[in-house]
């Protein structure tokens, strides 16, 4: 009954919809006219460097900040005019660890659960489940200040889930974590995806966005510069896949073949590295085109004896779009 009350009819199955959203802080255009849609059950990655506008977008969609202009809707509820309804639907895991250091893990969950007006008996059960899910059983009665960095991050994550929201805003959920804890959080996010939760994930980790997102948008200086599935973005934007070829044959033939291979439209660049005695070919969808490339060299009387591949990455996509590295 309670969840039905919170649902608003959504014909297109669009859970989050943002139209020309702007947020200006005096002269700073933190968010400058972004638009996107997120479907139910989708994990939408929001990728961008620090200060790009990711957290500001989350703050607006979670009703913490009011936009300068534009519109944000969650389950068709307006985030400004219908904030109370929106808050019942969403859970947020902020970038920083936000909880009471002097409270235990269990007390923090109980406190924030009560702030969402979750029934006490349900809350107790849910708090114990969440603690178990993220491996904090033994730390249940430990004060938050005594937890390790990774444990704090896990506590920070599950506080946002204590009222079992259908929509999650995860703001840099693994920033600064060791690989093991990061993997643990990823696993939990995968589980949430399986439970049909809609997830809005901001990150500046390329691999994280790549692995977790069904679709993603790249934001820079407050505007969205690319949007699509990770695969699509990698196939269409960037330096392409890099092939490392060890080729045997005469030097003249090899150099001639390298020049010829560049005539293919999917080849972005090709050159011979003397010191390494290695041919490098940069190609869009290089993995898919690897057969054609090898065939090109063998037709010219050369023999490809070793092949190495470095896939195109979202880092390259970002670099191609902005001319900057994501971490600059």
């Amino acid at each position, binding site marked *: 009954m309670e969840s039905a009350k919170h649902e608003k009819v959504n014909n297109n199955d669009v859970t989050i919809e943002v139209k020309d959203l702007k947020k200006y802080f005096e002269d700073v255009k933190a968010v400058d006219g972004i638009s996107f849609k997120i479907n139910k059950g989708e994990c939408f990655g929001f990728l961008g460097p620090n200060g790009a506008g990711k957290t500001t977008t989350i703050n607006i969609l979670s009703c913490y900040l009011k936009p300068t202009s534009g519109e944000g809707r969650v389950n068709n509820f307006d985030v400004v005019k219908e904030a109370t309804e929106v808050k019942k639907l969403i859970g947020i895991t*902020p970038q920083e660890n936000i909880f009471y250091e002097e409270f235990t893990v269990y007390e923090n969950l109980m406190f924030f659960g009560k702030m*969402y007006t979750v029934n006490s008996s349900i809350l107790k059960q849910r708090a114990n489940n969440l603690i178990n899910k993220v491996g904090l059983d033994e730390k249940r009665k430990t004060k938050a200040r005594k937890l390790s960095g990774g444990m704090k991050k896990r506590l920070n994550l599950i506080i946002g889930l204590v009222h079992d929201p259908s929509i999650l805003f995860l703001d840099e959920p693994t920033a600064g974590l060791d690989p093991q804890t990061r993997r643990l959080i990823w696993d939990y996010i995968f589980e949430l995806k399986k439970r049909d939760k809609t997830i809005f994930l901001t990150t500046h980790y390329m691999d994280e966005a790549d692995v977790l997102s069904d679709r993603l948008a790249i934001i820079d200086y407050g505007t969205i510069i690319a949007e699509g599935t990770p695969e699509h973005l990698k196939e269409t934007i960037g330096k392409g896949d890099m092939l490392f070829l060890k080729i045997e044959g005469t030097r003249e033939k090899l150099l001639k073949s390298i020049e010829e291979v560049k005539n293919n439209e999917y080849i972005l660049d090709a050159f011979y590295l003397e010191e390494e005695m290695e041919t490098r070919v940069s190609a869009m969808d290089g993995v898919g085109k690897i057969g054609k490339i090898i065939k090109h060299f063998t037709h010219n009387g050369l023999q490809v004896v070793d092949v190495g591949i470095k896939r195109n990455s979202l880092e390259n996509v970002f670099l191609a779009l902005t001319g900057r590295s994501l971490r600059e």
Partner: protein
Amino acid sequence: MSRLIVLIKKNLMRFIRNPKTLGFLILIPVIYYLLLGLIFGGIDFSDTTTTYNIGWIDDDTTNANYGIHPQFNLSYIYEVTDEINGINLVNYSSLEEAKQAALEGTITAYVYFPEGYESYLENRSFVNIAFWNNDTSTSTNFSIVDFYISLVSTTSPIFKFTYYNKTEGNSILLDFNNYNYDGMLIINQNFLKGLDDSWDVNMTYLFRNGTSLSKNIYIVGTFLSLANNYFHILNTTSDITIPVEYNYMIPNSTPFATLSFEIYFLQTVSPAVQATIENIFVQVLSSIINSNPLEIELPHEKKSTVGQVVNNITFSAPGYLLYGPMTILSFALVILTGEKKDGIYKRLASTEVTNWEIIISSIASNIILIFMQFGIGALILGLFGWSPIMYSLLDGIFGIILTMFLFSFLLLALALALAPVFKDPDSAGGGVWIIIIPLAMVSGIFVPIELFGETMKAIAAWLPTRFAVVALQNLLLNGLPLSHPDTLLNLGLLTLYSAIILVIGIKAFNKFKR
């Protein structure tokens, strides 16, 4: 409601779970009050009262009627004052003789009562009224003369009336300064006809310049009550009213002359001792000199007031007791700015909690801590001889609760307003003392305001914390009831200040929170 309780519980738990904060919360008032107790209460807990030898010069040859008004008799005042633990009165026949004794160190101060003092007190204790029957209409059912006779008999001995007919009354009014009347009650034209015809009728009360509002309200209230009772018994259906307006003062009337008693000190007597002695005498005599008939009706209450021990701690305790709670301002600010810095408000903003719940829970939890601070202070000062002089125990306790409640609101309103100024807990924890120390110093929390210069006294009079000090002084030192106009006025002003600062504070805080 349950969310609010959880928030309050959370706020208190944060104090309890943080050993340093909890330590400071308890240690600061404990150390502060222990020091004050040791300095001003003396180390010997059993006897902390200094005995002052005070000279007494009665130059008055007039005599108040001891039978009716024993409290106006200077011999009676002498006896009551001399019974105060810590005061030893010594009779002298002249100012010169007393001055000599002071110079020789026999007495610390001396009090002088001028000629006519008892007579002056007694005269001011009566309400002297000119009754002007200005009504020429007649009635078979009602009589103004009968009403006058009833009025005289019912209000005696506090009220004295003189009856004037239409022509006499007018000449009295024109020559009012030559008579000893507090005011004139006028039966207006057609008053009797109005009663017969069941109109609503009114009398007019004109008062002498300089009469206090409370006295006028008492006088008019008495007339009004008696007139309605009297005429309603005679079956009138008219309602009788007497408008009380400031402009109903008799034009060009001059206030009654006042007569003061004097307290003399040698310059070598410390200001603190001077203030203590002055306060004792003012308290002893104020109930008598203040000729408000409401108070004259309660002479036994005054006796209990003047019969108490007033030591240094008791004299200064109302101010001291506010200092401990004032430190809560610092803790409140640290919590408010800390929660902002830690992002707690951001996280709470994504929940169903409202701004009001956050603000109210903050106020409620800090009120609990403020009462705890007050309790610690009262306990420790009690060990050092603080003996509150209260109108009654119930009145005192209720008054303390009300005053501290309002004081808490003021502090929390200040905390909300100051949070955006200091922004983070580090600067708030230190910087707030720039506010606390001047507020405490100038309000008379540390040092009695009686020792201030006139400029500082004037500044203090406008400080909200001063209102709390005065209210507590009235309740715990002067033995005045909570309902006393001065106490109510100060509590009212404290409420007004708190409300204004709270509105500003909430607006500023809501903006700061984002």
